[in-house]
């Protein structure tokens, strides 16, 4: 890292270089997907408490109408993605595995793209507190994949002083190009959203960090930058996981988020470009988040590209629309490094879905190759961006020594980026061991 810094290139230490696979979709403009005949809107598609339905079965809903309200501060509302009738409020499959309560809408065939429910706002007259409330009413969550409620992120703790807003445009996951396209096509919305967010958190400057494999996106944003110089774009080295919040902060500011703490403690708030673009577009119009850009790619897809997809569209409809060859076996929601393999094609696109990938059988074979004992090659130690010791953690996980893992080897600092599993020559599913260990420890603590 230091060496690269001497040459003026911004990066963090460790990490990996997976093949990017972005060429199939990076130059494809965002296209709109038609409405599926039936939409499934889960009540818990964000971190925090599920929302509470405010519609009844059989009720007509208009596109953009509030159909579920936030349940407390750590929650967001849901809006109808299309005009139709509420068919059921029931358990439906989710990408994470278990079935979750969802509102099912039968969409009218005549439903058009016009958003029927909106309450335009005069943004200049709002106080920061009012903007935070407006963000919550929008139902916005982190669109980069974490699905953390955006208004919670923008609500700065009392004792923290924020000096910098970092806008995350790295998109370091292979295959995904949604942020790339959003930066190219929706620059004005992005800048507006960034300015709103700066106002809310009280940041003096904003830095948009973009990996240097997207020079066109960097140039496109530079054209829209306001003259006051408060917002700037920085090219950062292309490396996974550059888009992880902690890595990006270290790269751009040289600061580290303290172990177990939040970035606000060191005066930084990080937001994804997709999230701020949605913020910039939806807030003044007073609309809810009812659609998002998704990369549909992978060797199993006939028409790979970036699609503006209504939230709640079942994967089956999406894949049939873009052409999906049945010989491919793995459908992933999200990127290949951190995404979930889905259990059913009835799973809907949610607010946190950044991509739908269908990988080839050769990639699956690589994933299912024989697991050998750890040969202590140290590749995972050299890859871990958090500077943990996955070798020791893996050996301890096999022995179920979860307490030792967390007390001596900092298990809880693992960001689950998957670098260790990616490089492991023995094909040990290290990050999966760590996820299990963390959830067991959390259960014990509860």
């Amino acid at each position, binding site marked *: 890292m230091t060496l690269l810094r001497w040459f003026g290139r911004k990066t963090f230490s460790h990490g990996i270089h*997976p*093949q990017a696979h972005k060429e199939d979709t990076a130059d494809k403009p965002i296209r709109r997907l038609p409405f599926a005949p039936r939409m499934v809107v889960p009540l818990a598609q964000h971190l925090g408490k599920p929302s509470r339905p405010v519609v009844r079965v059989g009720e007509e809903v208009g596109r953009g109408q509030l159909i579920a309200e936030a349940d407390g501060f750590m929650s967001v509302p849901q809006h109808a993605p299309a005009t139709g009738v509420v068919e059921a409020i029931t358990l439906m499959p989710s990408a994470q595995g278990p079935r979750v309560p969802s509102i099912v809408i039968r969409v009218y065939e005549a439903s058009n793209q016009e958003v029927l429910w909106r309450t335009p706002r005069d943004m200049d007259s709002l106080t920061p507190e009012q903007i935070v409330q407006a963000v919550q009413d929008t139902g916005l969550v982190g669109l980069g994949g974490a699905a953390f409620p955006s208004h919670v992120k923008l609500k700065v703790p009392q004792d923290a002083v924020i000096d910098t807003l970092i806008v995350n445009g790295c998109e370091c996951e*292979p295959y995904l190009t949604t942020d790339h396209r959003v930066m190219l096509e929706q620059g004005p919305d992005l800048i507006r959203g960034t300015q709103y967010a700066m106002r809310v958190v009280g940041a003096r400057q904003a830095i948009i960090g973009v990996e240097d494999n997207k020079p066109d996106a960097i140039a496109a944003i530079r054209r829209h930058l306001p003259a006051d110089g408060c917002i700037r774009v920085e090219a950062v080295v292309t490396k996974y996981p550059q888009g992880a919040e*902690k890595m990006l902060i*270290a790269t751009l500011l040289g600061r*580290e*988020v*303290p*172990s*177990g*703490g939040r970035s606000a403690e060191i005066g930084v708030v990080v937001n994804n470009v997709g999230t701020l673009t949605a913020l910039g577009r939806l807030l003044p119009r007073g609309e809810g988040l009812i659609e998002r850009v998704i990369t549909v790619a992978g060797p199993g897809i006939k028409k790979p590209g970036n699609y503006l997809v209504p939230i709640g569209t079942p994967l089956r409809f999406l894949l*049939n629309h873009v052409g*999906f060859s*049945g010989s*491919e*076996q*793995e*459908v*992933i929601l*999200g990127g*290949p*490094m*951190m*995404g*979930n*393999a*889905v259990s*059913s*094609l009835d799973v809907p696109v949610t607010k946190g879905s950044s991509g739908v990938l269908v990988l080839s059988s050769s990639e*699956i074979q*690589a*994933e299912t*190759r024989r697991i*050998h*004992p750890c*040969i*202590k*090659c*140290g590749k995972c*130690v*050299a890859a871990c*961006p*958090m*500077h*943990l*010791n996955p*070798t020791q953690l893996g050996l301890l996980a096999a022995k179920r020594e979860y307490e030792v893992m967390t007390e001596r*080897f*900092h298990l809880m*600092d693992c960001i689950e980026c*998957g670098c260790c*599993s*990616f*490089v492991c*020559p*023995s*094909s040990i*599913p290290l*990050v999966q061991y760590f*996820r299990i260990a963390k959830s067991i420890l959390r259960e014990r603590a509860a």
Partner: protein
Amino acid sequence: MSRPQIELRTSPHIKAAPTVEQIMRNVVYALLPIATFAVWQFGISALALIIVVTGSCLATEYVFSRSAGRGNTLSDWSAAITGLLLALTLPPGFPLWMGVVAGFIAIALGKALFGGLGYNVFNPALVGRAFVQAAFPAAITTWTPAGMPGRFVEFIPSTLALPFMTPPSVTEWSRQAVDSFSGATPLAQWKFEGVVTHASDLFTGMVAGSTGETSALLILLCGIYLAARRMMDWRIPSAVLLGAFVTALIFHLVNDQHYPTPLFVLFSGGLMLGALFMASDMVASPVTPWGVWIYGLFIGVLTVIIRYFGGLPEGVMYAILLGNALSPLIEHITQPRIYGARKSGAKP
């Protein structure tokens, strides 16, 4: 459209090369030129020794992994590496039956006993060599000259010694072939006779010594191949050689009459082979960034100390075995500082 089949897995859904098999296979590839040179140098005795020792290792691995219920582990190629390395550290005229014993001990005691690949504490090849060093002290210090005229048609007499019999002496046999041969390796010549072989001879390797340790140049090239393919941690051999060089340089500067040049120390004996192919054994070396340097430097320094002050002319083997033994401790005290670590005492 047919109903697509869906398989469930956990992320990450993509994997990087190389696999364990690929790493181990490439180590074997890297050892083959060294073995070939050994055969060219020492003739059919070396060839027979390499084949017999490797065969013994493979057979032992097969029997033990099967009986331990681990299935057939020959396909991971690690036993072949142990066999090749072990053969390359033995004298070319080493009796074949002793080679079988060495191979058996290397795998059985050095590897299978600990639980197979990944669990061994010591480098298995060196465990085998240490055993035969203790068991057959005469045979393992019996050297024959390189490049003998009839080496491709005639075995070295000791090679075909019968089990549990004293091998025939090769001193007279060597003298007949090469008049001036003293029966010692360059290291032993320096230690016991004060004769220093020129570093360039050591570099190319036409000198007496263990089967595969003589050509520093060839070993370096093969090691660089592995390091360039990222199948060997370049830091460990670098640290070993650096440690040995600096230690030797200090001694040489203090007393250049008594202590040889650092280059002689680097290129003589088994230091090259040990540094590049045995100290760098992934399983028995630390993984932490500081740990690998400490481990390597320790081995390098210790090798020179043993050579200068020990009873034997060569010290690489014991230095590496000691380094292996210390590696968990080294790793324990060199745990990396994690991202965002708080100062001790601060509350999270």
